């Protein structure tokens, strides 16, 4: 029963990952981006759970719970931890217009399919076929990093990049040992906390978090 659904489940989860990534590039509101990030975390956790059940590894199910709690709930909560009213007002004015950005996303996705199939080969398994999605997420995350002006939107790009790396790891090698996964998740959480505090300090000190204005070095 499960075997028949397995390829479709993998396809569904990775599709959700790609779709959320593309939507993150498209939407300009910070709150929307955070919600998309939470959704992506849930999709990633679901993907890991599906792989875990298919391969009969209970450890992976544990990992999926960890991912759900950190990437699906924890990180978005940290990012959105501010009055909803003020965060709703934050609108990003990106350096790329939406049409161009979506076009770039398309090109990056195609590129990652080409690269993975030419360099590594797609393999026979369903997970192997979906592997380019991970690379596409990394590249899209990078695109977000360079096209967003605000520090917090850039943080979202960074998290997308991290999700992409995790996706590649799970799709190609069935994930990393749980201890390592735990450590990496905590690391990311810590980085986000620090950057979040940092962005807050930037706002109080300079009145904004537009990174463009931080060109001059000061002693």
């Amino acid at each position, binding site marked *: 029963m499960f075997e028949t659904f397995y390829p479709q489940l993998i396809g569904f989860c990775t599709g959700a990952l790609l779709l959320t990534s593309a939507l993150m590039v498209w939407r300009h509101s910070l709150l929307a981006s955070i919600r998309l990030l939470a959704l992506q975390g849930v999709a990633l956790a679901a993907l890991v759970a599906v792989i875990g059940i298919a391969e009969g590894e209970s450890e992976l199910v544990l990992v999926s719970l960890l991912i759900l709690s950190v990437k699906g709930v924890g990180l978005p909560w940290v990012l959105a931890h501010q009055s909803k009213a003020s965060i709703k007002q934050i609108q990003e004015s990106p350096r790329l217009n939406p049409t161009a950005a979506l076009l770039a996303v398309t090109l990056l996705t195609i590129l990652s399919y080409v690269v993975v199939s*030419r360099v590594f080969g797609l393999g026979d398994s369903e997970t192997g076929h979906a592997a380019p999605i991970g690379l596409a997420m990394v590249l899209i995350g990078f695109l977000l990093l*360079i096209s967003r002006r605000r520090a917090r939107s850039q943080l979202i790009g960074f998290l997308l990049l991290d999700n992409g790396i995790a996706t590649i790891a799970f799709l190609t090698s069935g994930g990393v040992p749980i201890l390592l996964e735990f450590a990496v998740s905590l690391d990311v959480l810590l980085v986000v906390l620090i950057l979040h505090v940092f962005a807050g300090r930037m706002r109080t000190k300079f009145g904004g978090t537009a990174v463009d204005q931080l060109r001059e070095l000061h002693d």
Partner: protein
Amino acid sequence: MTGIGAGLLLQLGLGALAVTSALLAAPSLRSRAGGILCTLIAVTGFVTGLDALLGATGGLLIPIALPMDPLLLAPDRLGGLFMLVVSGVGILVSLYSMSSTRGPDASRTAWVAMPVFLVGMQLVPAATDSVSFLLAWEIMTLGSTVLLLADHASRATVASAGIWYSAMSQLSFFFILAGFAVLAAASGGTSFTNLQAIEPGSWAANVAFVLFLLGFGGKAELVPLHVWVPRVLPEAPSHVSAAMSGAMVKIGVYGGLLVCVRLLPDGPAWWGIAIMLVGGASALYGILQASVSSDLKVLLAYSTTENMGLVFLGLGASMLLRGYDATAAADAALVAALLLAVSHAAFKSTLFLGAGAIIHATGERNLDRLGGLGARMPVTAAAFGIASLGAAAIPITSGFVAEWMLLQSLIHGGRQGGAVVSVAASVAMPLAVAVIALTAGLALLTFVKAYGIAFLARPRSAPAADAREVPPLMQLSLALGALSVLALGLLPGPIAALVANTVSSNPTAAVQSVGLGGVSLPGIGAVLDPIMLVVLSALVAIPVVVSIVVSARRHPHRTVDLPWGGGGSRARPRMQYTATSYAEPLVRVFDDVLKPSRDVQVTHVAESRYLVEKVRVEQHVSDVIETRLYRPVLNLFQRYGIVVRHVANGSIHRYLSYSFVALLIVLIVVSL
């Protein structure tokens, strides 16, 4: 775990403890605690180095996750010798700095950097693979850079020296890294055992040799990579200059030996000739600049370039001679080079510490404003005097033994059994002898000037007149330094035999200990026994001294006032020779090389232009290599830098875009 491994581990532990104590200790205790811990580090290194020098094996294996040979710290005999030298200087410097540091020199940062510097220097000779070598090298460089910058807030010259030093040490590091990379690529491993497998005549070995010569030559202050020396050594706190010149520079020499003796022995003849050329040029240029300098620490800094030049001259000569199978002479030259490095560590660190004592007492390092310190600072004067004798290579000191041995090997090396070994050697050896002769003469002048102007005659300024002897710990360290200079000079035999063990396959054929600690070179047929010399001279001198004393007793001393002083009775300190006037003939003779700029301003009395009110002379000797070679290159870089500023304008988005585009290009290229 072997003794050496335990020693190295103990050093690392003590280093960590010293760093912690520097961070946590109260300012009043910091110098004392730091000094004691640094002394312990150096003593541990001394014992470990001695152990390795005497032939003990073993070491410290550091496993790493990266896919390369594991990091192994296991000094061989040669490494042990250099650990010994470095830690010996470390002991002197640590004892000295315990009471010499004050103000910014005793800051938390400086005391954190000190143990890092000391441990880094110890680990370089202990490394047996290129990765741990480079790692230790960088630790050493980092520590010394921070120490140099201790006083940067109050003096602008320190900051400029720091920039020069960082740039030059990173340049050195780059060359060394590239050298190791070339060898590692050709041999397929990073450990020295793997690198040794490379054929010395191959192109990889030749390229690596040039890179290493540039890299280690920069650290060993060889011309034309010495430009940091006259800026950095004078500006660093004196105990740091002593550690840099006495110990860190030796690590550059160790690097040279590592390449030429251990990794790529029996290289082509042009390697030896190239090293001799560089060494000879450094020796001459260094001592010329030193002889005309009137800043005490600049003088000592340039004299370091001279000594390292001689060391490399010896190394080059030994390589050349070995290529023509003149093994005995080659070994003697190599041992001479090593002895010179050892003795330089002893006398130059003592000299720098002595200069530090002078600065401590007077705040002056300009010789033209010193004088008369001999009576006011007797211990410093005695130690500085003995070390000066060593630097000028006068008998019964360490410098003499080394230069004597070098000259013996050069003079006798060109011929073997009456036949000329090769045309190249028979041309190079006499030239090298001439270089050493000129160097020795100029060194004598230089140190007569340094000692005579600073310690003899009458004070030339108020601070010099008010000088007081330095605290006891500094005196102890100076006395230890001076004693080591004498010990190395009086007992050269056992020391030379030990040193010969480190580099020669058949040490007893090259160097033997004879008589009362004397040294003999069986392959050449020369013998030197300093203690016998002293005894003989004493036998001659004692009757003379006794007769003088007896006659002085018989005729009591009479005080006589000059009936007519001829101006001599009213001589003022300003009428004495100064360092500048003493070196004036030299400046004239070597005018073409030194290119001094001189400015004479004569002010006439208002009433008559035949009467002169005052004459002001200003003379400035700049470093020709810096102005002719480095300035144009630096200007070029500056112009390029202005252009590049548009590319790197400080926008984080732009930098991120660069890496994104680079990533995309890589992906596209690999998928093509």
